């Protein structure tokens, strides 16, 4: 069952401390330098509370939970409301 939230990360704020990957390995893997690789797609319903805790725990406040439709990939402005 999919929820309507996704984990997003502010890559500039992220310092590679690795708290998120340690706490939530189900969704977050750490690369060779300790920086998070976040699983694609919405947060599974059962993990929502843990995802929230991970967001709280990030020492740089780089991790965020966002609503699912919000796509912030570069160049993709397809979700803008157009008049």
């Amino acid at each position, binding site marked *: 069952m999919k929820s309507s939230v996704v984990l997003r990360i502010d890559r500039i704020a992220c310092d590679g401390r690795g*708290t998120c990957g*340690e706490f939530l390995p189900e969704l977050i893997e750490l690369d*060779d330098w300790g920086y998070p690789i976040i699983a694609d797609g919405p947060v599974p319903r059962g993990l929502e509370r843990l995802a929230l805790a991970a967001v709280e*725990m990030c020492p740089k*406040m780089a991790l965020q939970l966002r609503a699912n439709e919000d796509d912030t990939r570069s160049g993709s402005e397809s979700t803008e409301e157009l008049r």
Partner: protein
Amino acid sequence: MSAGAVVSQLPWMWLVSRASGLMLLVLFSTVFVLGISARLGSRLRSMPRFAVAELHRTLALFSVALLALHVATAVLDPYVSIGWWVAVVPFTAHYRALALSLGTLAVDLGAAVLITSLVRRRLGHRWWRTVHWLAYASWPLAFMHSLSAGNDMSIWWVAALVWGSLSAVALAVVDRILFARQSRGGRTSARTRSSGVAISVHPGVRS
């Protein structure tokens, strides 16, 4: 004199204030060391690293409760008149002004750290971190308050706890400085998952 009479004549407020003060020093030092451990990413036995940060936060909040007890008993102590405001406004006590003011200053800085931590999302990381560094000033103030306001250093285990706290904190500070020096070089090589094995053959012949 009956046992009941002895007990009722003990200066409870003063005793609890002294005891809570000592506990507070030990607790505050523990919080301090845990904070540095969390930053350094060290493990604590088999505890995961994120748990170190959580413990730091939990004990910090607990020490606020203990601090309330320490201040309340000092103020309510009938033998000495210390007003409530002395807890937050320095240099206003009539009794042992300097000793108490050191404690007051430590409380003020600690309060700033606490409040900014509670609203850190709204505040943003940069400001939160700037205020949090005030903790480095807060501990020495608390320590000197212990030495000057406390009267129990002649008791051997009190002295042991006090000097033990100082040692632990000093070591943690040294660790933190070394960590900062080493971090300036920055991460350069891959840490964990790389296969580490070259898979191409090099016969030493080039065309």
